[in-house]
């Protein structure tokens, strides 16, 4: 089956006669976009987080063949070494990583998370289920799908708070 994935704005046609290819493996092994990382391959760590049609998802827990026609954004698509996205700059400023393995997933997750907050989605920490404010507790809860084995959590929270403040709540 031929499937068209539009990744970071560029359409790619993939032949997936054998459908046993996760979106994560398609990105890394067929399109050579190795910024998206494989941690657990079971939806438990968030290293593989990408944005599909505006939503953050775990690319390891979905088949590439299920995404014909979808728009996918990976870490390669949000900034370049010469022109980093505000969240990427903030992670550097606040030392939001040690080994860096979880970082692409953290940044893609945070990018979509700030948009969710902007749209008013509640979280477990939003007591009355009303409009959320980006408190540290909200950031921690909303980023709980991204595990950092180096335990850079305090600096990750600082980076996200800072980037959100500089961009008026969005990462764009």
């Amino acid at each position: 089956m031929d499937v068209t994935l539009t990744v970071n704005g560029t359409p790619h046609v993939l032949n997936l006669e054998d459908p046993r290819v996760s979106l994560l493996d398609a990105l890394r092994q067929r399109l050579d976009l190795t910024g998206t990382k494989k941690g657990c391959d079971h939806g438990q760590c968030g290293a593989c987080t990408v944005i599909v049609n505006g939503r953050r998802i775990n690319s390891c827990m979905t088949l590439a063949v299920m995404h014909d026609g979808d728009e996918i954004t990976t870490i390669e698509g949000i900034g370049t070494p010469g022109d980093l996205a505000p969240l990427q700059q903030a992670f550097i400023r606040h030392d939001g990583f040690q080994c860096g393995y979880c970082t692409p997933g953290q940044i893609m997750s945070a990018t979509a998370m700030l948009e969710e907050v902007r749209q008013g989605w509640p979280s477990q920490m939003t007591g009355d289920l009303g409009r959320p404010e980006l408190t540290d507790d909200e950031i921690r809860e909303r980023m709980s799908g991204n595990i950092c084995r180096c335990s850079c959590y305090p600096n990750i929270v600082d980076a996200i708070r800072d980037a959100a403040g500089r961009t008026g709540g969005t990462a764009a």
Partner: protein
Amino acid sequence: MRAFDYARAQTPADAIGTDARIIAGGTNLLDLMKLQVETPERLIDINHVGLDQVERDGDGLRIGALVRNSDLAAHPAVRQDWPLLSRALLAGASPQLRNRASTGGNLMQRTRCYYFYDLDAPCNKRVPGSGCGAIGGVNRIHAILGASEHCIATYPGDMAVALSALDAVVEVEGPDGRREIPATAFHRLPGDRPDLDNELQPGEMILSVRLPAPLGGRQIYRKVRDRRSYAFALVSVAAAVTMQGGRMDRVRLAFGGVAHKPWRVPAAEQMLAGQAPSAELFDRAAAAVLEGARGQGHNDFKIPLLRRTLAAVLAEAVQESA
């Protein structure tokens, strides 16, 4: 993963009455397929059949099977009138997973335990007749209610616990037509068929979930677990309580993490209805919920944990809606 054929359904009819395995968000099925715990030969992808809307249904709500957990939790009507459902959804999994997880797939996620995932361990649910690794093994997360000598696994979902308390109805269609299954009767106890998690029959598909009119009152979902976020429940309590003149009026309670299905005990609710709240009464209600409860060793703590969590939830519910 074992090889499989893949097809995309255009309409629900394409997925009903076939022997292909439905895939929705894929977050539970692919997890199990990667480990070859599940080995379907054919997959039918229902992500493009529609059924992705939340609609008014009289005083209630009809939720399509493909409505994502994140959309359902954020839906204005759900937040306003069925906050218990939003809270249970937001207590489950991670934001990334909730963006994919569907209403139908969430209900259908396997009732399971860590031995179920381990192909080298005996497990009557995975291989009927092979035994149960959890009985006499490490069973900290397992059932204290409704277990059998064949399986002591717990249903791990949160959404279904709220749906049980809210008296929701699951609308399904099979080759012989449509039928409705109350949320409280959707999941089953293991008995001597632990391979069967629920009442959905082969060839049937979940089309939607219907919520009856709002219950009002204070609605709480308290999930007790090893960490504050992104972990399955050890014990969870879903409660909706209305008050009248200092007395509890309507009381709905359901419990997660304690049995092979969301646990509901109408006798305990009736014991509380019409009464003034007191610690002693809460304790008697907990005793009614825990009738027949039995620990397996490592999970003995769940019995007092359920009692204390229920007392804390009820104390909060009556205080804030009084």
